């Protein structure tokens, strides 16, 4: 057995992140508690190196490991986004873990191993490899969700996530095995070829397709496979929730679009309708149920469900029967654009949630934000920006993301879908702006004995500054991000 150096070079970023994770896990027991934070910096350093390597791979398109791994601009786009999100999550965790008195450097190890799983997902050209990447990502997330062991909610979140996640993995694997039985291969290129030669309405193919949609639908938290999201997001430590809501969703979308548009693109007449139903259901349920939430983490969980619905519009557009290749690439690039923008605003919102403390506990109820503008004008302003952006109001980046998605829908002839999405975007403004209203319009109640306070630290300030810069900059000048997404999409035929 010989390993060509080219193969190793192709997966260098994965190897670096994995190496950093293992180094952290090994160094953890021999590091005194006061220095455990240094281990987080190992992870950040590794991410910086990886970002450089991946950026240099941006223009290439190579296959490695007997065509199981593909390095193309599409994969590199998602990887760069994932590095950014992971780096910001590590910075956020530095302050958060200290406040929660969790001195577990394994936390960073699992974060990085989860990232390896996501990287494998987005750059795999083979269903089996995608499945294994998904498992690596999810298994690390199950542990991270339950890492706050002293708290029952955290353990409950971990257990629920694990049971439902294992169930959905089984369904995904069943779909993959049926597809393997029909086409004789798990490689996406071979599946594409086999699908072309077989008739479209093969019932087994249809069944495999449905099972794949269910499996991936669970990972991106689309209705009706979203049941786990609110409980898991509420119970997990806030920094982990931010990571799950952003990175796991982005990676799942990356793998999902590659499987359906590249591998099963020939079957789009079959899956298009299915996605349309899921997309509309997700938009409706996510936005309507978010209205009645009183816990801000639960509200953000439903909002993340709703945002998966918006992103699905782009997939529906790309899979529309009459879509020309121009509209298809518009649909795809708008999904990538949307998820990149979504990452900034959601990460920012969760960072503010992590920031707010009520005594020694987290301030999670929306009521805790009462009169925040009077006491902490900066934090209130940041939250205002993120909420406005999540609602999609100009001049923030959230508006740009929605604008491209809706434009794609209109140009593909799905105007009614754009109208429905717009209606529910208006509904969403209600619950986002309610937080703003509570912060700015209400006086702090005198009867409250424990006043919420802020946890301020330099790493958190960096996270908030990055998120704010992203939301503000791309809201006014989205061209670089749009160009990057359009460059990345070219790889998909």
């Amino acid at each position: 057995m010989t390993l060509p150096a080219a193969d190793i070079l192709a997966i260098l970023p994965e190897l670096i992140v994995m190496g950093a994770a293992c180094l952290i896990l090994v160094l953890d027991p021999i590091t005194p508690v006061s220095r455990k934070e240094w281990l987080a910096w190992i992870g950040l350093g590794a991410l910086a190196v990886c970002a450089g390597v991946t950026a240099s791979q941006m223009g290439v398109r190579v296959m490695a490991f007997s065509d199981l791994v593909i390095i193309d601009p599409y994969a590199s786009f998602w990887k760069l986004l994932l590095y950014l999100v992971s780096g910001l999550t590590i910075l956020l965790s530095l302050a958060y873990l200290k406040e929660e008195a969790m001195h577990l450097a394994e936390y960073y190890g699992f974060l990085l191993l989860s990232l390896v799983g996501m990287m494998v997902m987005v750059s795999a050209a083979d269903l089996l490899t995608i499945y294994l990447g998904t498992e690596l990502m999810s298994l690390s997330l199950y542990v991270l969700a339950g890492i706050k062991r002293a708290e029952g909610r955290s353990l409950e979140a971990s257990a629920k996530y694990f049971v439902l996640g294992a169930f959905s993995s089984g369904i995904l694997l069943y779909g993959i095995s049926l597809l393997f039985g029909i086409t004789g291969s798990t490689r996406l290129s071979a599946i594409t070829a086999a699908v072309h030669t077989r008739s479209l309405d093969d019932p087994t193919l249809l069944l495999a397709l449905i099972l794949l949609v269910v499996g991936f639908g669970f990972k991106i938290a689309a209705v009706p496979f979203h049941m786990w999201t609110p409980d898991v997001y509420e119970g997990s430590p806030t920094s982990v929730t931010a990571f799950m809501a952003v990175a796991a969703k982005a990676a799942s979308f990356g793998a999902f679009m590659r499987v359906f548009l590249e591998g099963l693109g020939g079957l789009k007449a079959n899956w298009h309708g299915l996605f349309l139903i899921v997309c509309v259901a997700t938009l409706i349920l996510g936005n309507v149920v978010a209205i009645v939430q009183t816990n801000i983490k639960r509200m953000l969980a439903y909002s993340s469900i709703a945002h998966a619905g918006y992103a699905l519009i782009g997939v529906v557009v790309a899979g529309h029967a009459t879509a020309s290749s121009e509209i298809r690439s518009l649909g795809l690039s708008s999904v990538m654009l949307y998820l990149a923008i979504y990452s900034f605003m959601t990460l920012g919102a969760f960072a503010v949630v992590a920031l707010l403390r009520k005594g020694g506990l987290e301030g999670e109820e929306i009521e805790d934000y009462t009169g925040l503008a009077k006491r902490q004008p900066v934090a209130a302003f940041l939250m205002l920006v993120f909420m406005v952006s999540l609602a999609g109001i100009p001049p923030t980046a959230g508006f740009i993301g929605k604008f491209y998605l809706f434009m794609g829908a209109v140009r593909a002839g799905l105007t009614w879908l754009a109208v429905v999405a717009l209606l529910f975007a208006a509904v969403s403004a209600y619950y986002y702006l309610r937080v703003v209203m509570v912060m700015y319009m209400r006086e702090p109640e005198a009867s409250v004995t424990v006043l919420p306070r802020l946890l301020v630290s330099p790493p958190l300030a960096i996270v908030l500054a990055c998120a704010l810069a992203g939301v503000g900059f791309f809201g006014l000048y989205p061209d670089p991000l749009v160009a990057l997404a359009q460059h990345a999409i070219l790889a998909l035929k």
Partner: protein
Amino acid sequence: MSHLFFLYFAGVIVATSILVVALRNPVYSALSLLIMFFHVAGLYVTLHAEFLAAVQIIVYAGAILVLYLFVVMLLNVKRDERYHVQAPAAAFLGLVLLTEVVLLVSQRAYQTAPAGLPAADQAGNTETIGEVLYSTYLFPFEVASLILLVAMIGAIILAKKNIDEC
């Protein structure tokens, strides 16, 4: 002859699978699961996948099921009535799914046989699998090893009694 074997194995698998969920004593459920595992292994043997059959017995029957029984006995779960409340809903959903699958499959019979794989039993089953695993499928194989690492450390983190919080 091979049809006869298939019918026997498949019949027992279906029957014992139903027993796994229908029996109310968890230990009986686990034991019917054991019988099912052995018959799945038998099915693999009729397909000339000897290695898979051996792995099925060693891993599933030998390791996973024993672990499962340990948990059942340690927790002393005798009868659990809680979940049987959901039985009507589950039966309804199962019926819907079953009709869907039957409809899909009966709609059109398989015109072409499922795509086969190149005959792998020239050099012996186990040898071929080993070779493929370490050459073609090296990358996913290594990813799987990472998954095991995460599972191992994760179990320690979540279950260890006192991680020194210091």
